[in-house]
């Protein structure tokens, strides 16, 4: 639960400067896809629950929740006395209203499909129903979500988006007109710890504390500043900045700075190589590639040690067995594997990536050298970001660098990148990988509500995945934060789009 922050020591208004690593465009949670937008919205809007730095669920609007034994009914109990920033009460109706918006085909929300398992979704989508029957307000403070089929991992789908919107403000707007509504350019009514006062294009977002928030908010004004990371780092040194998410490369610059604290957490993201399943169906080849890559070396060299290797597409700690093959760096072994697979060493292997991110660029350089070292005819192939998806769709790549998001919260999230049914463009399986055995295990895990049983099934799935090497997993980088001396109460979160999860607790002391 949120600890109440100590009130500001003096009447002097306090403010903090926070680095925003991207430029937000819209604050419409139905369609917003940028990390910086999510960060900003997490200050302005609230959600039912979120995750803490250990990726455990953390109550927010919902004080608690119950899950039915068959994992089909989720009941959320809201806190007492919730209010919007304009003083209006926040009730279960707002929650139902919001979920309906996400599911409503008219709003074209990019998150709609996450609610596909909810009862009534298909009807709503097809236009035969005018609301999402699976989400209902039991009373003012209780919301019940009913699923069509058991899904023990359902809650993980709602993390990171599904901000609750004020029905009393937006209720009269036609859902179809909602995406273009002016409210979203400067949402001034929200349930988050802050309300947005200004949005200065390419400069900053000015947030003022929400006096009607459920706890006392520690800092009066937040400035989210859009800069380059270099400048932001520099400003940390000049005192113009209080909170910066850093790249490992810039660590050196801030570590020596007086009064700057560096903290880190393993992130929710990772770097992997897509390995085209259609071109490399032989798992020996994929294993060989993985063995050839000096992942520890990359972590130590490129990330200055701020990262962890991964060995499975399933990443939730409790779903991982201890006996996974770690594919330690071993060029000789890699070569043997290739020879065993009857690899044609004259075959060109293109390593495709979108240049521009320093740690990726450097990792690519290492990987290319590693592959060449075992005799693979590896060549670099740089592309523009727009060219990436068509290339995947047409299976035109060999190896492709690809980042990825939150699979950590629940192993169910790993279905999309793995199952035969979701091979791109049908879904997020960008390696075009298919293994029915693995599909069966993943499906089984989704039906089981009991944590221990679930863990067992998923651990088995992880073993299969580990042996199959559907992706060449590289590493999970740590998310590194640097804070100034003035800023207190910051707790680092590995999911950088959720980095401001406890912003209400931050305070400033000069």
């Amino acid at each position: 639960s949120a600890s109440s922050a100590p009130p500001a020591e003096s009447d002097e208004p306090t403010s903090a400067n926070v680095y925003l690593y991207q430029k937000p465009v819209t604050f419409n949670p139905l369609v917003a896809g940028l990390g910086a937008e999510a960060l900003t919205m997490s200050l302005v809007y609230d959600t039912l629950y979120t995750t803490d730095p250990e990726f455990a669920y953390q109550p927010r609007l919902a004080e608690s929740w119950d899950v039915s034994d068959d994992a089909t009914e989720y009941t959320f109990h809201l806190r007492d006395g919730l209010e919007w920033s304009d003083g209006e009460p926040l009730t279960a109706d707002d929650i139902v209203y919001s979920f309906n918006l996400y599911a409503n085909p008219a709003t074209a929300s990019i998150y709609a499909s996450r609610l596909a398992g909810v009862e009534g979704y298909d009807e709503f989508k097809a236009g035969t129903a005018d609301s999402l029957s699976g989400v209902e307000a039991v009373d003012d403070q209780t919301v019940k979500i009913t699923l069509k089929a058991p899904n023990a991992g359902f809650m993980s789908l709602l993390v990171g988006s599904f901000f609750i919107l004020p029905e009393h403000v937006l209720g009269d707007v036609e859902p179809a007109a909602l995406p273009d509504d002016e409210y979203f350019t400067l949402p001034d009514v929200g349930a988050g710890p802050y309300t947005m006062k200004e949005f200065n294009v390419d400069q900053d977002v000015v947030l003022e504390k929400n006096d009607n928030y459920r706890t006392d908010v520690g800092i009066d004004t937040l400035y989210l500043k859009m800069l380059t990371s270099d400048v932001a780092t520099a400003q940390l040194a000049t005192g113009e900045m209080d909170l910066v998410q850093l790249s490992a490369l810039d660590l050196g610059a801030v570590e020596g700075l007086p009064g700057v604290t560096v903290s880190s957490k393993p992130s929710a993201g990772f770097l992997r190589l897509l390995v085209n399943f259609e071109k490399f169906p032989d798992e020996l080849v994929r294993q060989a590639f993985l063995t050839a890559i000096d992942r520890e070396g990359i972590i130590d060299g490129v990330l200055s040690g701020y990262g962890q290797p991964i060995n499975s597409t399933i990443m939730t700690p409790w779903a991982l067995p201890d006996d996974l093959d770690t594919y330690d760096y071993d060029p000789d072994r890699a070569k043997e594997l290739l020879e065993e697979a009857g690899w044609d060493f004259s075959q060109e292997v293109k390593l495709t990536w979108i240049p521009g991110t320093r740690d990726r660029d450097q990792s690519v350089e290492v990987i290319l050298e590693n592959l060449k070292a075992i005799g693979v005819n590896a060549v670099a192939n740089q592309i523009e970001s727009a060219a990436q998806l068509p290339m995947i769709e047409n299976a035109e790549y060999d190896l492709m660098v690809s980042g990825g998001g939150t699979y950590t919260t629940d192993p169910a999230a790993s279905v999309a990148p793995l199952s035969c049914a979701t091979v791109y463009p049908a879904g997020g399986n960008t390696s075009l990988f298919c293994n029915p055995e693995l599909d069966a295990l993943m499906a089984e895990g989704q039906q089981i509500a009991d944590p221990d049983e679930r863990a067992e099934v998923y651990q088995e799935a992880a073993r299969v995945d580990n042996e199959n090497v559907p992706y060449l997993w590289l590493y999970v980088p740590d998310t590194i934060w640097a804070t100034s001396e003035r800023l207190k109460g910051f707790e680092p979160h590995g999911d950088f789009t959720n980095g401001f999860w406890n912003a209400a607790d931050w305070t400033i002391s000069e």
Partner: protein
Amino acid sequence: MSLTETATQVVVDEEAKRLPKELSPDQLARRRFYRNPTAVIGVIVLAIIVLASVLAPLISPYDPSAIDLESIRQPPSPEHLLGTDSTGRDVFSRLLAGGQVSLSVGFLAAIIAVTLGTLAGVLAGWFGGITDTVISRIVDIMLSVPAVLVIIVLAGVIGPSVPLLIGIIALLSWPSSARIARGVVLSLREEEFVQAARVLGSRSGYIIRRHLVPGVLPPVVVSATILVAEAVLLESSLSFLGAGVQPPQSSWGNMLNEAQSLTVLSSMPWLWVPAGLLIAATVLSAMAIGDGIRDAIDPRKNK
């Protein structure tokens, strides 16, 4: 033969003996150039840089792309003269390899641009009329196109690569050479020796070859040196904006880019100072040579 003529003949011969041989405008220009210390230093510096880059495969102590994760970001040492970068590659070797890229971008782009530009300018200036109108219009349009933006867009379209960079820089640079060449030809056209050539029955091809091109060459060479300097600078700026030479291929531009990181800027000077110095030295030498030639061929500076 009349007395005056005989006298003249004697004097011509006498003069030949008595007076030191007068220098032709070209010889004078050459002498003025060699007496200009800045220009001569420019030639020497540029020659050294070019030579080092050409001989890079022979003098590089390491393979420029060989990574060594054991020794990353090492300061200069006897093994690594200029230290190593963040994947442990030898900075000195990369500098030499980068020179090959940066200099070929600079020189090839300039050569192509100048050749194209001279050709277009000479044709426009000599034939005039519709040829001139069309070429001049194209030149005007090309000059109003923002180079950096076009390069970024095209690099996005075709995918950034060194040949593309050279091609586009050349394509965007030829108008300036064309303007210069056209201007010179327009004034040469009015020179009596060119008009004389027409009256004497010489054809356009001969006039262009014997009279126009030699006259156009010196100012065009000046513009070429400036183009080299500009292309080298452009390459580095484009690398900064992410549309230049792409890693792992090294170029001075993207090596200098390392300085974007405050850490590198403040505590790893060996990663960017040499690249920065080489860019500056190349650009300065090219400009000094250009200035030297310009001063040397400027008729107002006699003797």
